[in-house]
């Protein structure tokens, strides 16, 4: 077995996606595809789904309330940074604070519930998702209730202005700076997930998913292991919430972080491939690309072809996108039940060792 050549090592889905993501703004500008704006949403949801992937994909705990952590992240970011509160942290410190609060919320939910098995845990997380919205709505002294909190700070990236990239200012009119910022966050999230997956921590998650009793008999205490998974997933979800609200400079109302968001994240993980990081990225592009890029284009094409009038039900894809989602899920379950890019064995290290010492 010889070591793979360099170009083959680089021929990977994640690298390909990164190159495509870097090329997209150029292509978009040349042919006016209007894809940069929806791609920001794709990337935020990719981070949310990467968080869910740690909990559901790696550790095997069905989590139906991921939107709650997104909401907690959104409000943690808003409260720690908005100037109607005294804290007024900058973007980066607020984001750090968001991740910590998210992880803490994950531990707080996990501590009493992680002894529960399977479906019971799913029900608890579902309830947590609903309760969080109501708490945020009713705690209006702190969270401003349904008004939402605004304005929120934009990131300040000094070296860009210093090196002549001054035009990349983070305002609500500009799309590109946000695009690059979110891409950076996605890259960091992917690296974090991958590092964890191929380490003692990630192996303990996978072991608990595969066979909890066997894992325990190998000296792995399942509850702390699950707790770490919960906290990591929640921190990633919280960061995605923080990014989302900083882009709109407002948290919007708590009802935005509802069950549909949780289910969308779960769909991304299932369509992409449970426990597969690349799969989650592809899944996010597939699901949200479908909802935010493909369907509006189809709808406008149908309108311009004169098939439907703008007033009809089919005029706006929001009216029928869940129909398409459902269809996609059914077809996926029939054709590729393991997802678009099923998790592969992480055998890179094993292969390397084999290459050094061939079998006798």
């Amino acid at each position: 077995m010889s070591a793979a050549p360099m170009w083959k090592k680089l021929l990977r889905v994640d690298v390909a996606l990164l190159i495509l993501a870097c090329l997209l703004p150029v292509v978009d500008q040349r042919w006016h595809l209007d894809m940069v704006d929806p791609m920001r949403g794709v990337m935020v949801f990719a981070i949310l789904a990467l968080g869910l992937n740690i909990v559901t994909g790696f550790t095997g705990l069905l989590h139906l309330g991921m939107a709650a952590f997104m909401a907690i992240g959104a409000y943690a970011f808003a409260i720690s940074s908005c100037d109607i509160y005294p804290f007024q942290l900058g973007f980066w410190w607020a984001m750090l604070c968001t991740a910590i609060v998210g992880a803490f919320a994950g531990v707080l939910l996990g501590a009493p519930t992680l002894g529960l098995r399977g479906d019971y845990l799913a029900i608890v997380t579902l309830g947590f998702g609903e309760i969080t919205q109501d708490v945020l709505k009713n705690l209006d002294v702190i969270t401003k209730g349904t008004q939402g909190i605004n304005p929120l700070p934009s990131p300040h990236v000094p070296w860009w202005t210093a090196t002549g990239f001054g035009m990349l200012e983070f305002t609500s009119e500009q799309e590109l700076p946000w695009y690059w910022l979110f891409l950076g966050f996605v890259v960091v999230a992917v690296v974090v997930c991958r590092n964890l997956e191929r380490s003692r921590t990630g192996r303990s998650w996978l072991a608990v998913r595969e066979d909890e009793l066997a894992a325990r008999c190998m000296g792995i205490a399942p509850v702390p292991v699950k707790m770490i998974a919960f906290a990591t997933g929640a921190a990633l979800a919280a960061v995605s919430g923080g990014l989302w609200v900083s882009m709109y400079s407002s948290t919007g109302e708590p009802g935005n972080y509802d069950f549909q968001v949780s289910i969308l994240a779960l769909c991304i993980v299932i369509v992409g491939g449970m426990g597969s990081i690349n799969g989650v990225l592809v899944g996010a592009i597939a699901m949200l690309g479908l909802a935010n890029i493909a369907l509006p284009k189809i709808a406008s094409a149908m309108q311009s072809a004169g098939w439907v009038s703008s007033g009809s039900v089919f005029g706006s894809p929001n009216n029928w996108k869940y129909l398409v989602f459902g269809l996609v899920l059914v077809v996926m379950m029939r054709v590729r039940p393991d997802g678009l890019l099923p998790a592969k064995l992480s055998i890179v290290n094993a292969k390397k060792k084999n290459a050094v010492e061939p079998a006798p």
Partner: protein
Amino acid sequence: MSVASTITNPILEVDGVTMRFGGLVANDCVSFQVKRGEVFALIGPNGAGKSTLFNAITGVHQATEGRVRFEGKEIRRDWSATIFARMVLNGFVLAFFVTLAIRATTLWKDVIVANYVYDEPFPIAQAARSIGTSLWSMGLWAVLLPALIGFAVGAGGYVTLWSRARRTPDLIARAGMGRTFQNIRLFGELSVIENVLVGMHAKLRCGFLANMLRLPRFYRENVVAHQKAQELLRFVGLQSRASEAARNLPYGLQRRLEIARALAGEPRILLLDEPAAGMNPTETGTLMELIRRIRDSGVTVLLIEHHMRVVMGVSDRICVLNFGKQIAQGTPEQIRNDPACIEAYLGKEELG
């Protein structure tokens, strides 16, 4: 029935273990001692309670009566200063959050809203003082009651969890007891080498941050761990299949992988639950040789097996169970000629 002779400094003592599931007595006052460095076999017809006893030893089940001592002491989480401190800490954290949650609006109004004037620096000292005045104005009991309830729930919850999980498999495994399972329980979706690495979990030291940030000590530990895993795979003869999915291995090799995984935790005693089940004669032969090599490497082996060739071939001493009761104990030679054992396995002789 031969009386169990007392052994000085045994590695494992099973002392009058009784396991009851409702009315069913799976083990009835089983006692034996395992010497350091021997192969001790536990045999008996199907349903004799061998696997149940294994589960009681490794903490999967709690023995109804009796004790299991490993290297002279029972492995359990005893009440200690650390556990007390954790209980108190848990209580205080929950007390803090319950108080805060119940009084959140008032506190926020008094401390943040009252002191903050838009676009002016926040008077931190004044805000800190208003925490006190705000709590004081609520009245003592309005603050103390939620705090007490929170403390009771937090501390009580911790103690409950501790008392329920005093003898858990993970604790016992970390103490130096490795095991395999009768129905193979590998991590099927993981590769062969990863299965072994999971077995090493308790021996590895890198925590969450070191793993996430790939600190230098992660790489140092990773290289050593992979070398050790390869050595173990070579030890059981799986070195050429390190990167395959565990679930794709043939049956006999899966059993070997389970042994390698159990050995990865550097146990001082290894519990093998029917390692030769479903193996052909050649595979059985290599397995016997493997068990001898494990013993020679200094690991005591406790073995459940039905294959009499394996049992008689490798064990130093044997304990026989039937219907949960211990009916004989001794060397293979003694067991072979023990009338009670012959009866249990072959039935009573009716005719001469």
